[in-house]
């Protein structure tokens, strides 16, 4: 079970010394599939690896460095366009702030948080500065604007990179109600033009993304982020913050899961926790996701969490008609 091997390699890097060639190939395939190969490359000491593995991990570090540089450039361009400090979220934030969570991390889009009342203005400024809408049909567009926690995705005309503008951290249709204003107020400045969430809010955001979102795709990576971010928080403040955002139970669960997978003090897992772990580790030595039925169950649950039942039925029906299939 390569999901298990991957988690073990991250938790105790020294254990890779026992891997044979087949074990390494399987570990690398699983790590790539979980988008954790960069993280792995930074965790493992080169001296512990056979000669054939070194160029593979070296390439992963090259990719991670480039990703970081491009991500910071996108943040710079956004700040330049908006002419004001930009609050970064997720991977770009970790890298900009030099956090352990940013080491070797894959960064997809630029994610920023802006006050809800500024969304229109921000949208217009970005449009003028060369970002355009990723083509969507009218239904998705309306759904996004009305219910989601972010603008529909935009992509830069020349640089071909995406930006996601959030006004809160969970969709408006979710049952939890995070306090976005509090997050903005407590943001921490890291340069003149860039700021990030407070350490406790960073954990909350990452948890919201993982568990309240429900899909669990990319969960191993998300929990690694959380594991790294938990190192920086004050426990009492985190609990208070989590309660404020209405995700106290989810944060506690994430703490249990992160500890179970990646080490550290952790409360015993509940039955549901164990199902989630089982789902998260469902990756074989070829990089394939196994336990498919369970995956579909999680996909449904993810949408259920985000939307009231009637909306869910209508949304899924429309998507089904248009040819989307849950993977």
């Amino acid at each position: 079970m390569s999901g298990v091997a991957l988690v073990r390699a991250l938790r105790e890097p020294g254990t890779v010394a026992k891997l044979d060639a087949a074990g390494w190939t399987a570990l690398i395939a699983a790590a790539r599939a979980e988008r954790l190969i960069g993280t792995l490359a930074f965790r493992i000491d080169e001296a512990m690896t056979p000669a054939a593995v070194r160029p593979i991990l070296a390439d992963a570090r090259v990719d991670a460095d480039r990703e970081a540089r491009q991500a910071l450039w996108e943040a710079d361009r956004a700040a330049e366009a908006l002419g004001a400090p930009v609050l970064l979220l997720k991977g770009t934030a970790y890298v900009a702030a030099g956090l352990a969570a940013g080491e070797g991390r894959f960064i997809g889009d630029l994610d920023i948080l802006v006050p809800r009342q500024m969304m229109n203005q921000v949208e217009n400024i970005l449009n003028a500065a060369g970002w355009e809408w990723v083509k969507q049909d009218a239904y998705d567009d309306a759904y996004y604007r009305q219910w989601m926690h972010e603008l529909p995705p935009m992509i830069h005309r020349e640089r071909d990179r995406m930006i996601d503008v959030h006004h809160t951290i969970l969709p408006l249709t979710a049952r939890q109600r995070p306090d976005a204003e509090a997050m903005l107020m407590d943001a921490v400045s890291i340069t003149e033009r860039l700021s990030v969430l407070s350490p406790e809010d960073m954990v909350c955001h990452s948890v919201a993304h993982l568990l309240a979102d429900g899909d669990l795709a990319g969960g191993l990576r998300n929990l690694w982020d959380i594991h790294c971010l938990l190192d920086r928080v004050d426990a009492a403040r985190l609990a208070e913050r989590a309660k404020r955002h209405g995700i106290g139970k989810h944060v506690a669960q994430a703490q249990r899961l992160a500890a179970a997978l990646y080490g550290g003090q952790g409360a015993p897992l509940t039955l549901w926790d164990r199902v989630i772990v089982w789902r998260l580790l469902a990756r074989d030595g070829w990089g394939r996701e196994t336990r498919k039925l369970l995956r579909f169950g999680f996909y449904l649950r993810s949408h259920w969490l985000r939307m009231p039942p009637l909306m869910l039925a209508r949304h899924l029906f429309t998507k089904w008609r248009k040819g989307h299939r849950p993977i």
Partner: protein
Amino acid sequence: MTAERRYHQDCNAALRELEDITLLYHRASGQTHMVISPVPEILEALGDRPATATEVHARLERRYDLGEPEQVIAEIEAHLAGLVALGVVRGA
């Protein structure tokens, strides 16, 4: 009269001269640009000392025969603005 804008190079760019054009690799963005005169010369004149368009003009004048100053300075300003849009140069 408003003060003239000062410019400085964002960070080092790697330049390579080909027969017909000059290539510019901008490290911070990872982008490659193809540029022709007078852009390489302007960047060289800018160097690592922040300057206004007028000062850049003065530095260039010492090496090249440039023509009518007012017009040339306006052109230099325009090129610098273009380079700012790319991120290769910043307003100081």
